[in-house]
């Protein structure tokens, strides 16, 4: 005798894992400041380079970043991607632009959506400014900056940002 020839082909498992994440002090400070329309970075004690969101230490100099600085909400699109693929849990009309934005005075870029323009109007070097959620609606989290929009200023020259994508 033997077990049935026709096997059970699959088992279905649904993993449910509870997590409770901490932002850490640097990130908490950064996120809470967004509520006041402030973008904070941290400055490396060895090189003076500015990281946004603020890092506790600089990856290049391996030195502490002991000073918090405020950055303007304007910058340059250093590079970008036009997304035509729907992503689970994200309801933005396709296509949309996700850009690396180098804020003025920052030495690394942040991610942001670029809207209020056609995707084909976004270029490497386009100057953009943050569009914030209105007063009273900002919660102190990433969604406080809704997206970036072009400022209409002249495009930044490639050599000014090609090494801070």
């Amino acid at each position, binding site marked *: 005798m033997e077990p049935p020839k026709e096997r059970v082909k699959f*088992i279905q*498992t649904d*993993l*449910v*894992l*509870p*997590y*409770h*994440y*901490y*932002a*850490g*002090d*640097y*990130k908490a400070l950064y996120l809470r400041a967004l509520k006041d329309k402030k973008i904070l970075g941290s400055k490396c004690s060895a090189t003076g380079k500015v990281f946004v969101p603020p*890092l*506790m*230490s600089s*990856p*290049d*100099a*391996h030195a*502490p970043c002991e000073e918090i600085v405020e950055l303007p909400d304007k910058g340059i699109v250093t590079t970008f991607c036009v997304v035509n693929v729907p992503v689970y849990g994200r309801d933005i009309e396709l296509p949309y632009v996700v850009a690396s934005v180098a804020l003025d005075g920052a030495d690394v870029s942040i991610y942001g959506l670029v809207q209020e323009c056609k995707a084909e109007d976004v270029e490497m070097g386009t100057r953009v400014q943050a569009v914030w959620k209105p007063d009273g609606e900002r919660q102190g989290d990433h969604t406080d900056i809704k997206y970036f929009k072009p400022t209409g200023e002249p495009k930044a020259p490639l050599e000014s940002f090609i090494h801070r994508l």
Partner: protein
Amino acid sequence: MSKLRNVAIVGFAQAPIVADDPHRTAPEMLYPVVKQALKNANVERKDIDYQCAGSSDYIDGRAFSFSQVMEVMGAWPPVQDSHVEMDAIWAAHLVWVKMQAEECDTAIIAGFGKVSEGSPMHVLNLQLDPFYHASLGLDHVSTSALQASAYMAKAGVDDAGLAEVAARNRAAGAKNPDTQLRQAVSAAELQKTPFVTSPLREGYLPPIGETATCLVLAAEGKAEKMCDKPVWIHGVDHRIELQTIGARDLTSSASTKLAAKNAFAMAGVKGVNDAQVVELGSTTPVEELILRDALGLSSGLGGKADGPVVNPSGSPLCANPLMNTGLLRLAEGFRQLSGRAGERAVSGAKRAVVHASAGHCLQQNIVWVLGTERRWA
């Protein structure tokens, strides 16, 4: 054993082991630790040839968790690097192998795990075979309890025996400023704590805790310049067993026995009694008893303390920061042999045997022999 390269532990640092650190992320916990370990080893980051970390994505609750810590390890300009999805003591072993292959002379080993952010019960269930064991909801406490019951039935050890082992470790932990539970508790008190999964009581299990650790290893020629008392690796081996807990003899640890036999042969020692200190990665009293047996130590039950001092750190029963627990055992060996063990120092310690474990019911085991003198002339 043919001649190997003399490699030493020359520095170590750790973050305080706490139930949770709400102020810092894993890389933020690690940054000062890496800096301190380098300082302790009198070395600049640029003089380190290689780095290797040990951590787990599931512990941290994010895929590629290890890549976050590249930001804090001083990896610029780019460095030679690797990562094992294991307790960092296996990263230390990989580095030691790398040194034997003469691929590096100095290295830092980092361990981290934001244990408080997840639920170890849920997470460690995922280590088990998905068809027959994980789907029953088995967690690490329950599998340890199964092992404990089998051992107690076979060896005739009772609840009081477990309490005695746990109390001994808690008393040792009280003298260790770097562990998490630092209060001695009597066996009688521990026996009053409630069962989590019987026969294991709350008092017989480690607390949930987290830390970050960094160990510095160096080969002969460089090690002496980095540490006043380098602690030399005399022998090491690790072995895994099949996983299915119902298909193994849970009451003994064959893989520890084999790893110890090989490590002892490499070290040129007869057995565990050639050491003055033994540090075990036991997360339950029963694991300690099984490991004692596997290494050839007496049970120590009934207050009979002969042979080497076992678990002067207080063992993982006083702190079990996952992914670091093993590396902390190696650190204890280093601290004991290099005069850095403070109040809990075992006097005259010249040789230590260090053990660490991974998986359910001691599935995977590593055994090290450390000494104050170079092993190979």
